[in-house]
């Protein structure tokens, strides 16, 4: 048996604990991913998807539970310490990149993710050549604009750049937080295609949050449906084949209704 690339056990996060507003964002969450798993996370708003991703990335420290990445316990590590294992693409293209810095500098920041940074010159010629090569694969012409501030790029270009920045270091874990939600359909498809190509080529263990049921069915080898901070339903590779959007929505409703009935 291979070790899990990501394992969350009993992950719990409670906001406003002990007040009337108490809210369990994560409630004993258990999830395990094998290496090269491409797991799609779906669920309604407030189901805990973002809290889950933030807990994994370290932005949201857990109240209880344990997180391991490739067998290593990272529960107590800060977000910036976990960055050596994790790359992340945010929903907002403005967050994932540094707008006032150039494309080349952004690539440099990503290359050094989780590595010690020294006082040596940053954007050396060999590095620039490497970045040009990596960016050329996008076919967006970004490779000729290394000295351009990222703020001048369109949302789609920025998101594509974020993706290249995320995957170029071959992270142990790739977190995609609705990373195509803010894009127009054509650009979203472009970014999604690039994502799938990179994830498959590099065999990256990936967690992708999406509201797009078609994406959930089309991509990945595993679907995790979340509700009230828990995993409601896990659909594996075998079962995932042949499933349709209505099926998925149907199951989603049945499950939530069941929960609602139990609660009453």
């Amino acid at each position, binding site marked *: 048996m291979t070790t899990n690339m990501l394992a969350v056990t009993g992950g719990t996060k409670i906001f406003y604990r002990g007040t009337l507003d108490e809210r369990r964002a994560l409630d004993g969450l258990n999830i395990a991913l094998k290496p090269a798993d491409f797991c799609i996370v779906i669920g309604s708003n407030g189901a805990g998807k973002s809290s889950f991703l933030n807990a994994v*990335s370290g*932005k949201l420290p857990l109240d209880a539970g344990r997180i391991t990445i490739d067998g290593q316990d990272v529960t107590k590590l*800060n*977000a*910036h*310490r976990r*960055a*050596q294992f994790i*790359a*992340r693409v*945010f929903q907002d293209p*403005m*967050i*994932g*990149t*540094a*707008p*006032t*810095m150039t494309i080349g*500098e952004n690539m*440099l*920041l*990503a290359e*050094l*993710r*989780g*590595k010690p*940074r*020294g*006082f*040596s*010159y*940053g*954007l050396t010629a060999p590095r620039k050549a490497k970045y040009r090569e990596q960016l050329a694969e996008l076919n967006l012409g970004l490779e000729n604009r290394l000295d351009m501030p990222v703020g001048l790029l369109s949302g789609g270009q920025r998101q594509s750049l974020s993706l290249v920045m995320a995957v170029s270091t071959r992270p142990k874990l790739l977190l995609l937080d609705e990373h195509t939600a803010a894009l127009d359909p054509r650009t979203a498809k472009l970014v999604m295609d690039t994502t799938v190509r990179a994830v498959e080529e590099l065999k990256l263990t990936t967690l992708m949050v999406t509201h797009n049921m078609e994406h959930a069915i089309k991509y990945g080898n595993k679907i995790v449906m979340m509700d009230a901070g828990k995993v409601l339903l896990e659909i594996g590779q075998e079962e995932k084949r042949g499933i349709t959007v209505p099926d998925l929505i149907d199951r989603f409703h049945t499950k939530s209704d069941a929960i609602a009935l139990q609660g009453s």
Partner: protein
Amino acid sequence: MLDILTSFYGLIPVTIAQSLIVAFVVLGVMLPFRILNFPDLTSEGAFPLGGCVCGTLISMGVNPFLACGVALVCGFLAGCTTAFIHLRFKINTLLAGILVMTMLYSINLRIMGRTNIPLFTYDTVFTILAGPSANVSWVKILIVGALIALVVGLMLYFFMSEKGTSMRAVGASPDMAEAQGINVGIATIMGVGVASALSATGGSIMVQTQGFVDVNMGFGILINGLAALIIGEAITGRQTILRQVMAPVVGSIVYYQLISFCLTLGLAPADLKFATGAFVLLMLALPNLRKSGSGTQIREKIRE
């Protein structure tokens, strides 16, 4: 008119020497403000702190170079304190700066033990380096100019290094920086610390050129620094890191010549702070008055 120009011309070297010293403070204002996106007021307290520490040590017979070094370290600690207060207690950066600045006033008084110390009789960095010609303006310009060139060069290199790039990322997008494994807190503390160290260095050089320390020195230095920075950026632009680190020096030199010109034209020194404040206000307000100014977004950042 001619005599006004003559007296202005005669003041040029003195003014350049002064503006190069203040350029340290302007660099110290620029760094948190532009690089870290951390509007910081500590300079207003770090500048006199540097002066008081350096002056007091010199008056105790300590080597002036060592005195400057101690002043620099004290300034660094003051900046670190401001950044720490902001990060740890989530207190607004400006308020954190005001708190530190206010408390520094008492500390400065304690360090000096009185409000004023004359330094005319002591050796300074300038008398050691230049001997009897230490008071010649061009000598001061040469010494301070060399030092500021060194600082600007170091800053330019640093901000293009691996570490410096990550510090700039912290200002440009803290979430992104954290996701790239950068310790945002440490980078902020170090950056604001270095900025205040620069302001303190400016203060320590200032007391050695003017020959005395006064606890009230540098009142309003921050607004002067801000005005100089805005002028500098209007001249050099801020598209590249070279332009951004050059702006404080260029701005300081131009700004102090403007002030000197206004004074020779007959502006009462008492009105100077009002004029400076009005100028900064105008520069910040201008894009809004024009509604569609190209510099709107840049300036909006300052107002926040």
